[in-house]
């Protein structure tokens, strides 16, 4: 065939949305995990843990697929490195979700003060909400592309990105508060448990951080 069709490469923007969806599905499972975990439903927690590991792997596959179909010869409306960095950061959300359940299941039983549980779950929810916001922005990428990554559309997305930064900051503050409270109760919580919970909190915080970075990478694309 003598047509000029091959000049059009495979768009990476659709798959990057698919990847973000996979990543968010993985992260959302964290809430089910801790619900089961705090309820003492070990079987259910184990199931959720397993499915998180499986979903993280699924996201990895999408990531590799995108990378394989993004050769150097592609000319994109955004910097190829920015796109790959965005993909990497999105994937981090799935990786961190996996790390959270791994750390939370290292020591059994791992106790957590009952009265602090709502506070922990609220922090987790907020961190996940930050990820969801990043997901909303990634889903805007088609409209951004239509607008050639500029104009009013870009300005709107930029303001959403700024909101993510604010939300991430709130999560960090809340985590600091909860960690301080846990250390105050060191004698009742136990040192090893304390260390593990601190690690979990740190990972939950990094989840929001990754969401913020997703926004930052999209911001770089807009400012090119």
């Amino acid at each position, binding site marked *: *065939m*003598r*047509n*000029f*069709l*091959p*000049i*059009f*490469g*495979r*768009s*990476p*923007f659709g798959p990057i949305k698919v990847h973000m969806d996979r990543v968010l599905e993985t992260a959302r499972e964290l809430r089910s995990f801790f619900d089961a975990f705090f309820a003492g439903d070990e079987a259910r927690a184990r199931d959720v843990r397993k499915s998180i590991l499986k979903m993280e792997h699924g996201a990895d596959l999408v990531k590799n697929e995108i990378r394989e179909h993004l*050769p150097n*010869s*592609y*000319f*994109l*409306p*955004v910097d190829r490195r920015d796109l790959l960095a965005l993909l990497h950061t999105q994937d981090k959300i799935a990786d961190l979700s996996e790390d959270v359940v791994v750390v939370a299941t290292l020591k059994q039983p791992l106790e957590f003060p009952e009265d602090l549980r709502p506070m922990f779950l609220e922090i987790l929810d907020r961190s996940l909400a930050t990820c969801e916001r990043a997901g909303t922005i990634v889903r805007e990428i*088609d*409209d951004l*592309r*239509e*607008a*050639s*990554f*500029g*104009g*009013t*559309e*870009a300005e709107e997305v930029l303001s959403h990105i700024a909101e993510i930064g604010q939300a991430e900051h709130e999560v960090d503050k809340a985590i600091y508060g909860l960690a301080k409270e846990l250390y105050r109760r060191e004698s009742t919580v136990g040192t090893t448990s304390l260390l593990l919970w601190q690690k979990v909190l740190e990972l939950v915080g990094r989840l929001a951080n990754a969401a913020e970075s997703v926004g930052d990478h999209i911001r770089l694309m807009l400012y090119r």
Partner: protein
Amino acid sequence: MLLTAFLIAGLVFGLYMAWNIGANDVANAMGTSVGSRALSLKQALVVAAVFEFAGALFAGSHVTETVKKGIVDVDKIPDAFVFVLVMLAALLSAGIWLQFATWKGLPVSTSHSIVGGVAGAGVAAAGIGGVQWSKLAWIATSWVLSPLIGGAIAFVMFRFVSGAIINHPSPRARVRRYSPLLAGLVLFVLVLSLLYKGLANLDLDLSMARALPLSLGVGIAGALLAVPLFGRVRDAPAAAGRYGFVERHFGWLQVMTACYVAFAHGANDVANSVGPLAGIVAVWQTGAIGAKVGIPVWLLAFGGFGIVVGLATWGYRVMETIGKRITELTPSRGFSAEFAAATTVLVCTKLSLPISTTHTLVGAVVGIGLARGIAALDMRVMRDILSAWVVTLPVAFLLAAALYWGLAAIFL
């Protein structure tokens, strides 16, 4: 008797070339419209058939004249019969090379093949002096310039479309205001190209001073007429995204540019099939090569017919494939690319330059890519196109020379 046999052979090969153009090249020109769903496959076929034919018939004589007499130096050709063999060899070599390229999937241009073929056979027949090298150099330069100019126009047009409409705070209001203007602009350029040194076949050969105000008038009238038509464009479903409404307007505008592209393509590329044929016909009619007979209208119609047959028998499949796979090209992009490519091709047609419509369209698409309008362009394909381009000229040249010597050995 022998001359009539050669004429029939020429008609057969000319028809084959036209068929090839219709089967492969028209799909490139029209596939973008099918891809962006501005036209259905059936509509695209009808539009392509009508406008390709019209372009070939009404505006095809300029470039045809170049292929017929502009490349070979007719004064250096010893006699009319040799000229016939030159033209036959050129048609044959281009046909063979295109068949090979289609088989191998090489992005080869019909125009490059025929120009290389005519030059090669000309040199074989009359030595190095048998070809007007300065003219050939000018044609080759236009092959470099046309994708660049197409790219530049597309870049500017798309920048305008995204700046003035898509990226504006209220794209809906802006597209309502600007789409009649764009429709008027397309009409203006199209009518101007028809009227200015255009419709010679209808004895409507106007000077710029008369053609310009007339086409301006038609453009303005068209824009005014388009206002209520665009007013009737309905809202797009929410699934079409935020710019669905805007893209619907461009869908209609793209129907216009699709016609425009088909017309320009027919006008320029018909020469690739009937150019050499016109040389044979002239000799057959007058017995000499120098005679000023012009290009008979029936010959242009014959080329146009061949293109339409190619489109109907094979081209629709290529168009369907292209249409299915170019989903990235939304109507706003398709409009800008097609407008740029068609304008460039028509200007070259006016300058009697045989250029590649496909390359010009590729240039236009890259121009839009540079304006951040396309998701992914594979630049490796550009390299393939460039190398096919570099290879085509010498291959068609040598093949035509060899074929000429073969024909001369038999018939002279």
